[in-house]
């Protein structure tokens, strides 16, 4: 997550103090992502050094100093908002590695392994959904963050469901499916 750009976005509304930025960042993300005040000031110093923001008193540090976004800061923010994050290469996902590994370990039933993770994810989703039930109606930003987390977890559950079905079919027709090592090699090549 880019704290740097999130702070620029908050400063695009007008000049602000460090403590105020921290408070607005946390409340703006439904307090799901806490921010250390030290991290706020370090980030502000770097933004100032790069000419993306300026302060009332450049020599002074601490809570009395107010920051404002510069023209190049606004340009940087605008470019960041419309640049998609890099999602070209698959992340080295621990859960995917666990399921692939379960296939190779003698005596381990991969479907049981999948179910353990599926249940854990659904239990987490139940907790996130409860939060939405209680608070979403009156806090739009919080609801957006919770939705994002629910969709992320949901995508993993769907992958587990698909893997479960694919492995079941593969067991019924062992020669019709590509083997896992070939699949793994292809992913490595693409990287």
């Amino acid at each position: 997550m880019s704290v740097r750009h999130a702070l620029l976005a908050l400063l695009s509304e007008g000049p602000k103090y460090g403590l105020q930025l921290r408070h607005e960042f946390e409340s703006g993300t439904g307090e799901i992502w806490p921010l250390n005040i030290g991290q706020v000031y370090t980030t502000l110093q770097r933004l100032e050094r790069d000419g993306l923001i300026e302060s009332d008193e450049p020599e002074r540090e601490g809570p009395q100093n107010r920051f404002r976004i510069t023209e190049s800061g606004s340009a940087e923010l605008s470019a960041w908002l419309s640049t998609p994050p890099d999602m070209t290469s698959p992340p080295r996902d621990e859960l995917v590695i666990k399921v692939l590994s379960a296939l190779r370990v003698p005596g381990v039933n991969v479907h049981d392994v999948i179910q353990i993770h599926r249940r854990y994810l659904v239990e987490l989703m139940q907790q996130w959904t409860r939060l939405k039930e209680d608070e979403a109606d009156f806090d739009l930003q919080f609801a957006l963050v919770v939705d994002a987390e629910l969709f992320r977890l949901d995508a993993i559950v769907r992958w587990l469901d698909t893997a479960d079905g694919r492995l079941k079919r593969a067991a019924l027709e062992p020669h019709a499916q590509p083997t896992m090592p070939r699949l793994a090699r292809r992913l490595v090549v693409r990287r």
Partner: protein
Amino acid sequence: MSFLELRRVSKSYGEGATEVHALADIDLSVDRGSLVAVMGPSGSGKSTLLTIAGSLEKPTSGEVLIDGASLETMSHNDKARLRRRTIGYVFQDFNLLAGLTAVENVSLPLELDGVQARKARVEGMSALEELGLADRATHYPDELSGGERQRVAIARAVVGERHLLLADEPSGALDSTNGEAVMRMILAACKQGVAAVVVTHDAQLASWADRVVFLRDGRVVDQTVPPPSPESLLERSKL
């Protein structure tokens, strides 16, 4: 006491070599006021479980109890009355009658149960109002959007004094916003004391439930434990 209880319920179709076991030894109990989701892939037996729980189909073995009464010993008429008065069904494709308006669809089960037409209509209107559909009451199903049709179906399922709500993929082909609205309505019914079972393959829908039961090849393989308070998520993210 559980309002709905399935005890060692099994269901098979066909015989001998062609016999298919749709459900095997299912134990499930649902209290009033609670929402249970049954999650599983296509062909796992979810819909069969629901039709058996709703007395639309008989199990091959095992027992179903609704409000403590066994369906097995109930007469045909008693079961029909139970379906009209106590159980509300919500289907994936809504199953609204095309020739009836929204309010007529909702009040029909009451009229079939002998409630006077005018009184049934008043109750139907009140159920539609609760779901924000008062201004659509005189529209026919083909004049309603998918989300509105599903809300009418839910109004029909909860109208009167229903205590058991059975929903089969209730968000059907709806988008996630409408799907969420459907689950909020079912949850609202539960808060008024209804026992509800939702079968779905969708984890986001299932996550609205108090308990999620996982079905695989006709068997319950796992279920969630009651989650800790959601505040623990926020505490954890602050570590």
